[in-house]
């Protein structure tokens, strides 16, 4: 059975029908990417999975748990972590405090070893552990956001446009980290506008357009598809 199953969700903002019947799944150990243009509804899907938004119909099943009605702060304890769009680290708190917040649901004794793990993966953060997060560069902030999410030891890591607003070299670095996490066995759901890079790391991919999934397949299949070439890869 799939680790995450999204079953025909319809999500509204008031009367705006943002997600119109989306279904997909993520299996253990996979990197799955959700690509699509601005306003397609990608973030809405992630926030629904995280419990910040509620589907009007349809549902989300994680492992064997129906997440219907589960409060957002409880979703984390099930093993789902999200790195939200725009990072949303706590800008007035230090790097280390941000990481501690990521471990909020974890028992106290595991926090320090968790922080040590994150520092090993992101040595830059260790150098800046006492620095106020708002003074980090964009790339460092993205690393902090990812490190913070990893602190909850998630079974599924959801990343919302981690490459947004970063210089090409940093984008490459972020995707290298995604590959490393994948190699280490982390299951990842990646939302991206950078279709090229996302499809290259993904086992499977879904294309979203105006609230619906219009195409799906392996990363390589979609990379080769005419439709994707035209719409997202400028080919």
């Amino acid at each position, binding site marked *: 059975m799939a680790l995450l199953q999204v079953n025909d969700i319809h999500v509204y903002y008031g009367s705006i029908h943002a997600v119109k019947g989306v279904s997909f799944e993520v299996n253990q150990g996979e990197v799955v990417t959700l690509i699509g243009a601005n306003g397609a509804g990608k973030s809405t899907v992630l926030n629904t999975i995280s*419990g910040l938004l509620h589907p009007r119909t349809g549902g989300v099943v994680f492992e064997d748990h129906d997440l219907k009605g589960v409060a*957002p702060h409880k979703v984390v304890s099930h093993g789902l972590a999200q790195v939200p769009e725009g990072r949303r680290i706590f800008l007035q708190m230090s790097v280390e405090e941000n990481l501690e*917040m990521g471990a*909020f649901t974890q028992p*106290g004794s595991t926090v320090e070893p968790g922080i040590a793990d994150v520092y090993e993966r992101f040595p830059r953060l260790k150098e800046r552990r006492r620095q106020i997060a708002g003074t980090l560069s964009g790339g460092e902030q993205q690393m902090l956001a990812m490190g913070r999410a990893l602190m*909850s030891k998630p079974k599924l890591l959801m990343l919302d446009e981690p490459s947004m607003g970063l210089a090409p070299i940093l984008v490459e670095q972020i995707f290298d980290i995604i590959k490393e996490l994948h190699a280490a066995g982390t299951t990842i759901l990646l939302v991206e506008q950078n279709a090229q890079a996302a499809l290259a790391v993904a086992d499977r991919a879904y294309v979203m357009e105006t609230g619906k999934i219009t195409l799906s397949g392996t990363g390589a299949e979609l990379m080769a598809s005419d439709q994707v070439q035209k719409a997202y890869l400028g080919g």
Partner: protein
Amino acid sequence: MSFLNNVITGISLGSIYAIIALGYTMVYGIAKMLNFAHGDVIMVGAYVCFFATGSFGLHPVAGVLLAMVVCTILGMVIEGLAYKPLRQAPSLAVLITAIGVSWFLQNSAQLLWGAAPKVFTPVVSGGLSIFGGQLNISYVTILTVASCLVIMAVLSAFIGKGKMGKAMRACSEDKGAAQLMGINVNSTISMTFAIGSALAAIAGVLMCSAYPTLMPTTGSLPGIKAFTAAVFGGIGSVPGAFVGGLLLGIIEIFAKAYISTDLSDAIVFLALIIVLLVKPSGLLGKYVPEKV
């Protein structure tokens, strides 16, 4: 010596403002709302202590503790019933509700305990007399200043180092992100009201020990002044509440002593306006640009 006496009185009054201002500033920091009923929680705390010690003969320490318990519960109930349903509502609706809660508390107090002022018995009596009686410091003053310092130290440590204190800071910055960390935002807000209201109870007892007239409107003016102190120091900032409260108390007492008793409140607000003109975010407040 009268100068020194004024300084001491100012610091003592300022300590009370600071303790009250903490409640305003913490609630503002996390819930982004002005809880105008906060001043009336002070009044309730003072009444609880008044009856506990006066009518039931409890020890003053027990009276204060009881007042803290009652106010803590009151603060959480106010938040849960009046403000929580308005989490998504426009801030004007929340503000009007807060004013409504304030009136509700004042009228309930009047109904329960009558409009006639009660004479509050200070929790400690006596004082120190030094320099051959030229300088008098009451034990209430010493207790007030000491309480303020202890509260500031404990609260700063809690917010700076404690797990729940950090969660409070996280919520005050970004509630959505805090939820993604597994922080229960509703219970964190409720906890903030609980802490602020417990402090209001202490402030109520200390204030009525120094100025012993207790009636249903007792909390309202000090509440507004403490709110001013919070804005003065930078609303949302805990050290700001401390500095703002102390300065406001000193300015008020000096204005009374050297300028005019009638104008002292006007002078206090004038000082506020000057500070806000020079530094809109208050003395220690951070300037946070609007997100675009």
